Structures are given as C-alpha cells and as structure tokens.
C-alpha cells in the first residue's frame, strides 16, 4: 500500500536514521512478516472495519472473575479495610477533638516551625477563609484523608523507587505497570473496589494510592540514577553496603528530584478527592461533586479552592520535612 511506504520514507527522512533494531539479523524479515500478516488480514476483512470482536466476552469473563475474588478473599479485604479505617477514624477524631481555632493554630504553628513565617500566615488565612465559606468540616475530612493517603503513598513509593533504581530489570518490569497505574481510569477499579471494601473511605484511599504512587516511584528512581558517577565511586571505595550507600549518599543527593516526586504524589492524591467522593468519601471532594450536580460552578470553585489550599499546605510541609530529612542524612 502506497501510504505506508510513503510513511516509512517520510519517517526515515524525518529522523535521518536507519531502524535502531536493525542490528539483529532476524528483525528485518520478522518486520516484513508482521506487516505482511497485517495486510493479508486487511485483504480478507473489510478494510475499514475490524473483522471480529471478542470484547464483550472477555469483559464478561473479567466480571465473573471479580465476583469470584469477592467471594473468596473477603477476609483479606476486611483486614485492609480495618487498618485504613482505623487510621482515618483516629486522625479525624483527633482533629475533631481539637476545635477549629486550635486546629488552625496548630497548622499555622507547624507551618511556621517547619517552613516559614509567611507559610504560617498563608495557612492560617487560607484555612480561615475556608471556614468563612462554611467548608471547615469538609476541610478537616479532606485533610485527614489526604494525610493518610500521602503518608501511605510516600511510604510505598520512595522505597519502591529506590529499589527500582538498583535493578535495571526491575525498572523495566515496573515501568509499564506504573504507566498502567497512572492511566487505567480509576473508575474502572473503583466499582469493584466497592464490592470488596464497601462504600466509604477505604476504596477511595486505595484508588488514590494506585494513582498517586507512580510519580514518586519514577522520580525517586530517576533522581538516584542520574547521580554523578564520581561521587558514587568514592562512596563505594569506603566499602559501603548497599543500604549505607542509599541512606548516606544516594538518597540525600537525590532529594531534590525525590521532593519533586513527593510533590507530584501529593498533588495527584488531592486531584483524586473528587473521584473519591464518588465512592462515598466525604470532604471537599463531595462538596465539589454536589455543587456540580446542581450546576453551581461557583460553589464548586470554592470547594475546589479549598482543595488547592490543602494541597499547598500539605505540599509545603511535606517538602520541608523532606529537606529536613536530607539535612539529617547529610550530617554525621
């Protein structure tokens, strides 16, 4: 077919290169075979419609398999649920036991101690603003949800990223999985998750984890991989174990990139709160959801602003903690 040939020519012209895989003897014939098979299929089929469709069968089989899982693994799901719910409830209770002025004061103080005085002013005023918008309770709920998910995400992601940086094999395996975690629409697993974990915060936390973990894994991995060989060589010459190497040299040096990952994780966790509200999580996400159900973009925007404020506060505090961690790892 002419277009394909033209395309090949075009691509070669564009890239100015021969195929990179051309070194292997079998690649050229295999490629020809492949393209050939495609065209034969095309010949027998109506050219612009694919000849058969097994989608619904496969889809149905997956549904059946999910039912089986639900029937047989419920104790496991229950256990996971119990842990997450325990964390969330404790945190929310603690925050509720504190009244709003104490909470705002505490958050402002934390911002001051860990970040800066300007940040404390920002925290206090933005939270007060949210309170005047009648969003205080939602904010607390979202805060609790996010603190739990971000903590879990970082606890999972950073070690995983470190691990991936140590092995090319693992990295190669992990990469498409992470791609999948980030792009598989959360809606897809949220509904089965309800079957496993009931409506509420648990499926929300898990879906958020799946979505928020990848960037921190990737950036931790990248940060460690692009460290200067000379510094690593010197560290190696001291007879460091793998762990020492990581803790004393690689991780502290990779901190700027890891921090970027943690930032992305935090923001992505927060970008999930609306979706979390679809499966029963409360908080600002629910407010957004409600406002939009009523076509009140203004109210949605206010709740969204609340999410943004929470994002900025949590992000800045997390970043400051990470930096502090670096300082701690850097000093003897």
């Amino acid at each position, binding site marked *: 077919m002419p277009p394909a040939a033209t395309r090949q020519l075009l691509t070669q012209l564009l890239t100015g290169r021969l195929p990179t895989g051309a070194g292997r003897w079998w690649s050229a014939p295999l490629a020809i075979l492949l393209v050939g098979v495609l065209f034969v299929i095309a010949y027998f089929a109506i050219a612009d419609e694919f000849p058969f469709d097994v989608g619904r069968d496969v889809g149905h089989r997956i549904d059946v398999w999910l039912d089986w899982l639900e029937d047989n693994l419920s104790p496991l799901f229950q256990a996971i649920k119990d842990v997450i719910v325990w964390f969330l409830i404790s945190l929310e209770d603690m925050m509720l036991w504190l009244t709003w002025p104490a909470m705002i004061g505490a958050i402002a103080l934390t911002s001051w101690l860990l970040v800066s005085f300007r940040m404390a002013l920002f925290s206090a005023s933005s939270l007060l603003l949210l309170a005047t918008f009648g969003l205080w309770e939602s904010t607390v709920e979202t805060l609790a949800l996010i603190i739990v998910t971000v903590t879990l995400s970082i606890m999972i992601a950073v070690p995983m990223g470190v691990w991936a940086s140590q092995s090319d094999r693992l990295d190669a395996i992990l990469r498409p999985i992470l791609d999948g975690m980030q792009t598989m629409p959360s809606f897809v697993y949220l*509904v089965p998750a309800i079957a496993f974990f009931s409506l509420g915060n648990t499926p929300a936390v898990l879906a958020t984890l799946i979505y928020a973990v990848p960037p921190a894994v990737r950036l931790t991995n990248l940060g460690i991989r692009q460290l200067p060989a000379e510094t690593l060589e010197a560290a190696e010459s001291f007879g460091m174990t793998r762990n020492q190497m990581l803790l004393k040299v690689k991780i502290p040096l990779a901190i700027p990139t890891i921090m970027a990952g943690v930032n992305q994780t935090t923001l992505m966790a927060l970008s999930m709160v609306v979706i979390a509200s679809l499966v029963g999580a409360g908080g600002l996400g629910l407010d957004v959801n409600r406002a939009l159900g009523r076509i009140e973009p203004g109210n949605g925007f206010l709740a969204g602003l609340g999410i943004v404020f929470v994002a900025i506060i949590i992000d800045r505090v997390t970043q400051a903690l990470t930096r502090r961690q670096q300082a701690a790892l850097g000093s003897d």
Partner: protein
Amino acid sequence: GGEEEKTTVVFSDLNWTSSEIQVRAAAYIVEHGLGYPTELVAGDTVSLFQGLINGDTQVTMEIWPAQQPWIDELEDPDTIALLGDSLDENWEGWVIPQYVKDANPGLVSVSDLPEYMDLFVTADSRGKARFIDCVPGWACEQVNGNKVVAYGLEDVLELVKPGSGAALFEDLESTYARGEAWLGYMWGPTKPTATLDLYRLEEPEWSEDCWNGDQGCAYPTSEVRIAVFHTLLEDAPDVVEFLRAWDFSADVQVQSEIWMSDNNASPDEAAIWYLKTYPDTWSAFVSSDVAEAVLEALAEES
C-alpha cells in the same frame, strides 16, 4: 419499641437536585417522625447502586428506568425491594428550544429533521446535525441509537455524548442563553425543562410492538422508583410502609428546585422548605402522630 434497638437508616445521597431534596425530606421524617437515626452517604449513581446491593446503604430514593438492566442482572433479585414511585409524570424525548420551532414552523417531528439539519451543523459535527445524546451508559443511549436507525437519520445526526446529566443541562442552558439552535435528548420534570421553553419533537406513538422491535417510536412515560435493601423490610417495616406511600410529585419537585435555585439555598434548606410548605402532601404518607412529631420538630427549625 425501644429507641435503642432501632437501626440506622442509611440513604443514598445521589448527586442531583431532585434526589438531594427528597432524600433529605424523607430522612427528616424517618428521623423525627419514625424515630430512626439516619445517615446520608454520597456518591455517584453507579457507586451508590453498588453500595445499595452491598447493603452499605439501605434506601435509594430514585431508581431510574435506565437502571433497570442493573436490576435485571442481579443474581438474587430479592437483594433489593422496589417500593413505590418517587417522581411521577416522567417523560423522555427529543427537544429543541421553542424559539427554534417558532423560527422554523415546519420543524414539527423527527421526520422533518433531514430537511432542517443545517440549523444544527457546527464546526465539529462533520456536516451533520449536532444531536446531544443521552448520558452514556444509561438505557436511553441505546434507545436513541436504535431510533436514529429506525428513523433513517444515520447521515443526518452526529451524536454527541454528554458525560453526565449536568453536562447535558449545562450545554442546553448555555446554548439557550445564547439563543442558538439546540437539538437533543431531554427528560422531565427537571429544572431546565421547567424553566426553559422547549418544544418536544413529535414521534410515532409508543406501542409494545414498536418498543420490542426497532424502537422507532416515542418513549413511554417512565417511572422513577424507590429501592430498599432487603433487610430493611424486617428491621424497619414502618419506614418501608412510609416509603411505599411516598410520592414527590412533579409539581412539588420542580417548585422545590426552583425555590432552591432562586434563593441560592442548600438542599437541606430546600427540604425544610418543602416540609413546611407542603405539610398536607407528606402528611398523607404517615400516620397522624408521626406527622405531629415531624411538625413539632419543624417548628424548631429556624
């Protein structure tokens, strides 16, 4: 019975206005009249349906015809029980703004569409008329598809799928506000259909045969129903009784929505407004002493 023994009744808090108002109104009666603690769990249609069949929630005030297939597919049909109607006089159909109709008096029924399709062509509709379809996944999406074929409109209509009811409303309302042509699927009673002047295109009359055949005819009048999780039948028979009697009539529904919108009010306020404004309507669903208790509680609301 002892107050402590009463189970908490969990309502599915679906995220559109009619449901939000009537869920709150019903929950208010269940709590203050029948004395059950109540709880609302928010989510979207699919999640809350899944939650209902799990027993995470016990009452869903609106089960739309679109959800009938889900119920049909249930392994155990007794998981949930469908009680009475919650919204009545529901219609579905293809509509255009009245001002379009006025400008083109000849556009009366779906069969006139090929002639007037140029009215609805836009940059991204590939030269066909832009038709705003029903929300993907709802039963009406399938039906609309069948109708297009049955009416021979495949080359006339470019189907644009709104991802949610809100998106559909917003597109209609903003186009209407600009005074441009709009063609698409709508249902009522809803706030847009109550506040905007729309014209419903004529279709062949609904019949059983047609509906089971190529569906080349008008929608039937649909029923929105109340569903409860099966345990509620035993745990709270008086609540079930009340819900069976419940009816949120079209007029009341639209009035409540309009009041809420005009007063920039929350659904909680709208529910209280409804309970205060239409005591006669809802008193009919409960015994007099229950109604008494509710009125007492209402008196304390500011």
